[in-house]
């Protein structure tokens, strides 16, 4: 069973992901991010990861090219990983 991951968009500047992000689907996540950035244009893209239960370095690697243009919302479970990755400044933790 492959790792579940679904996306929903809320307006032009929000990409919400649900499921888990790992090596097997990091490319999907990266593609979704690129698409959402194009949609958002110059606006800051909100990447809503509150529905994501797991993200590893492959998932984070997809986020890094966009750090200047995104802000991240995540549930507390992901907080340590995001902090270690140096993404805490652009991340809002929400229950």
């Amino acid at each position, binding site marked *: 069973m492959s*790792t579940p991951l679904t996306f929903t968009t809320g307006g032009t500047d929000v990409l919400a992901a649900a499921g888990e992000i790992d090596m*097997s689907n990091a490319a999907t996540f990266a593609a979704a991010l690129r698409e959402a950035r194009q949609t958002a244009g110059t606006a800051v893209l909100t990447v809503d990861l509150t529905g994501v239960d*797991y993200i*590893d370095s492959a998932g984070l690697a997809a986020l890094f090219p966009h750090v200047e243009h995104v802000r991240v919302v995540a549930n507390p479970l992901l907080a340590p990983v995001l902090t270690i990755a140096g993404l805490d400044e652009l991340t809002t933790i929400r229950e």
Partner: protein
Amino acid sequence: MGMAAGGDVFAGGGDVGRQLAEVAWEQTPLGPPRAWPQSLRTAVSILLSSRFPMWMAWGPQLTFFCNDAYRRDTLGRKYPWALGRPAGEVWAEIWADIGPRIETVLSTGQATWDEALLLFVERSGYPEESYHTFSYSPLRADDGVLVGMLCVVSEETERVIGERRMATLRDLGSDPSAIRTEHQVLAFAAAQLGRNRRDLPFTMTYLFDGDTVRLAASTGVDGHEMPPWPAGEPARGETALVELTGDLPAGDWPEPPTQALLVPLLRQGGAPYGFMVAGLNRYRVLDEAYRGFVELAAGHMAAGIGSARNYETQQRRAEELAELDRAKTAFFSNVSHEFRTPLTLIMGPLEELRSRWAGQDDAVRAELEVIHRNGLRLGKLVNTLLDFSRIEAGRMRAHDEPVDLAAATAELASVFRSAVERAGLRLQVDCPPLPGPVHLDRGMWEKVILNLLSNALKFTFDGGVRVTVGQDGDQAVVTVADTGIGVPPEEMPWLFERFHRIENARSRSNEGSGIGLALVKELVELQDGSITADSTFGVGTTFTIRLPLRAGRVPAAAGPVVSTGADSYVQEVLRWLPGDADTEAGMPAGPPSDVRVLVADDNADMRGYLTRLLRSAGHEVHAVGDGRHALDEARARTPDLIVSDVMMPGMDGLELVSALRADPRTAGTPVLLLSARAGPEASIEGLEAGADDYLVKPFSAAELLARVRANVELARLRNHHARWRTALIDSLQEAFFVCAEDGAVIEINPTFTDILGYGPEGLPYRPVHPWWPDPVEEPQRHQEVADAFTLLVGQTRGSYTIPVTHRDGHRLWVAAAFNRVREPETGRHVIVGTFRDVTAEHYAVQRDSALAALSVHLSEAESLTGAMRGALSSLQDLWQATEVYAVVFGDSDLPAVTTTGPGTSWAALTERQRHTLTVLRGKPLLTPVAEQTGITLEHPDGTMVLHVELAEKRSFTEQDQTLLALLAGRLGQGLHRMHQIDQQRETALELQRAILGPARLPAGFAVRYAPATRPLKVGGDWYDTIPLGDDRIGIVVGDCVGHGLAAAAVMGQLRSACRALLLQNTDPAHTLTALDRFAVQLPGALCATVFCGVLDPATGDLTYSSAGHPPAIVTHPDGATDLLDQGRSRPLGVRLRAPRPEAHYLVPARATLLLYTDGLVERRRQPLTTGIDRLADTMREGRADGIEELATDVMSGMAADAGYDDDVALLLYRHPGPLEIDFAAEPTTLYSVRSTLRGWLARCGVDPTTTQNVLVAAGEACANAIEHGHRHGPAGKIRLWASATAGHLHLTITDSGRWKTPQPAANPHRGRGLTLMRALMGEVTVTTGAAGTTIALQTRIPG
């Protein structure tokens, strides 16, 4: 139930109670016990519960009851027959005595009391004399009517009879008069024996009289005709028992004895005096006490006879002595008279000859003078003896007459004037006239004064002698005072004793009989006077005589006062004085011989006589006057023979001999002693002092010359004898040596030289002898020899075995025996010894004992290592080695080293030691190598080198090498056998392990089994895990009773049964219940204990039931402990019907469950709970460790020093068990792996944050592994393994690829992966090997 209730009456009655319960009571008037009235039941219960002897009678027939104590003391063979019978039947034989008493009790209700009543009971098969003190008291029925009686009785037979016998023995010993005649003794003893006609109905005492036997005394016979007695055994000192029949005296009894004892009257160190016949009491058996009594009585009699005979003998001897004394006095008297006649006939003609030869031939005249002087002396001695015998016989009468004492005394004193002056002394006479006469016997007075003067002159060397006469009241006082040597104070009391002589006093002559002063005293007292002596040692002596002065006129001198007898005194004294040159003329000289004789005698006449006699035989003679001069002369010019008088002033003959013998120059000179003292004692004394011969005066000239000749020839022969002795000693097969007292070897024989290599040229060999072992090289051996040497010079005789060193250096063992003897010629002590070479025997013994010691070590060892250590220590002891090494060159890289010292290893050895050992290794097997003091042998693991490190300079001889080879051979065999035993033991343990548990354990479990250590034994403990169909796991720990293969076999069957039942039931209680049924069919399975549980490893839910097993222990992550002590019930196979309980328990996350058998916690003298508490502590301390490590720690931590006494099985489970996932190296597998890990972490009770951290870290590791997997082909596999302890999580992710070096530039997120892992986990370890890469992660679980 009826029986039980009836039986209760007799409960607590011991054996008697049980027998009472057996009685057919329904056939007695009392009926069955259940129907007994309360009063009877109470009485019986009191009776049985008492420890004092009692019996009772109840009911119309007086039915008999008794208790254990009565049965023991009194009932004898009547038990158990008597129980329940009518008392009149039980005690029929004494019913006449006790019946009326019981009757009285029953009719009056009054208790009776009898003390020590004699009763003839028949309890041992014969009517027996017995004494009882007892009381009968009434027993009443429930309604108060008298129905029985209770007897409390104390049997006193032993006491009464014992006291009676004691009284007889006391009377026998109470003989009031100390000494009696034999007849009196026997009469007295008979009187005492006759008073005890109970123990001794009759006695007859016979005495042996040469070959005949006579009756000396008897008691109780009273005119009966007695049978003849066999005297043979008593005559040999043995006791005999004789059977009797017929009409014999009965003593105090109605019937006569049926046996008599014949006891010898023993005499110490001789045949018996006789024997005593004792008729025996037929109402007592002849036991030890009875026999002892009769023998003691006989002993008393024998002792009495002995002392009576002794006394009679002494009495007779005293009478004989008195008779002898009377005879002696008569003899002296007669002999003295007889002497006088020949003396007169000698002296008469002699006077005539002297006057005829006066002025003519000098030689003849000189001889006549000698004869004359000695004739006078003999006459004086005879007169003195005669005086004495007269006094003794009371026949001495003083012919008193009035005498002018002053004048008479002065005249007597003047007789001695010339002699005194010639001795260089002054004589002072001060005798003023007295107012009255003194009544005296003139002859006696003359003897008194002359004796005193002679005595004074003899002991005075300077000054003078003073004689005074004076008056003191009504007494005349005469004193004779000298300035001589005086008398030592301790001798004063004996001064006037007859024959008493002061030893060693300096005197002019040693002549004298010692009766002079005694005679003086007797004579003075015969004249109503008294004499006293006053002396200061070294200053002088004064004798004071007091005589009563009479009234009347002093008579004028009547004729010559001094008799001719006075001349003999003066002549004698003159002979003591110097200047009277020895007359050497006389006998013609014989043919000259080359024998030089030295003569020593204080008497000038004797000296002259001996000189002339010996010269006549042609000897060269030198004569001296005392021992001192003789010694000086002998030392200056050793004579061929010394002839010496024994009694001489200064140094006497015996002292002379001792002095001669002590000096090596004169030690061999023969000495012939002359003495006037006859008797064997005197000659023995002389010979003991070292004299060669002894001649008693008077002797004949021919005898003297013969003895002189014989002794001279013997002395010459002695040299010849010495040659023969040397030849004898030289021919001895044993080494012979003579040591001086200081231990210096002064003589040896050739065998000595053969054995030790030291020859006579080196004599003397002074200690320390050159053959002693070197004190530096062999301090112990040296000490052994030093100890033996102490023995040699310190003891009179002895033997020892010691190591010695041959002159060429080789080691020998010799066994020596020595004896201290006195060298006859010198009187000195020397040590004579022999020894032989026992080297071969010594090594044989050493070899045998070393082999024995080694065998003991090998047989006692429990393992190969133990055997080796024991063997090395025995080798160390044998050679007193500093250390012994055993090095096994086996398969491993480094040789294995065992030593007698503290533990060491090959690496710790010195370069030199390693070299030595390596050299030895190259030598052929079992061939001793002297240079390296070692040997090689086969060890089960390879070649073993044995190296004995000797103390410095200690040599390793050929014997040592032989012994080492022998021991090494034995050790090799031993080690191989030991190895086999070890293997067998391993096999046994493997076998046990194989039957006690599953080959594969489910995850999360650890198990251990240990057999009992000492002695090593397998047993009946087991553990088991059984995977059940529903993913649950059956867990079982059990313990069968007993040890050994039998228990193990039972265990195997129980385990299999339990396994099968659990698979069928999956319910612990039912399983155990079914196992109960199985256990009752299986011998040895009863009472086994089992803890049976079913665990759901997913949830930790545990259902369990315990069959008498110790509670399982659960340790929580925080250290809290739960004991699973519910669901408990009896061990297997006990009371089948009751259902077994079951309990539930939820094992918390990361808690550890421990099942075990009681061997783990059971310790002697400790409650089980102590062990369980300790076990809980151990578990708490180890809760952070891995499960295997914890299992090992528990096993070692709980063991006593010596290991386990009982076998131990344990089973550990930590919940949840570890997670193990194998998956393909594909990214798509990651999600499911993560899900599984998440679920496991939840079971571990891990918080969400930590869970997330672990998931990410593990995910990164897996991702990394997948990348490796891709790189190295498509079929890569990855394994994830995770386990939890109380506070930590451990994960490993293993792949078969190679770790990717972080290259952030090329692949930035991979580098982040490692960063993430490190940030999220407490510890990350990456190990890359040829086979793949392992990432180990570890993190703490908070909380």
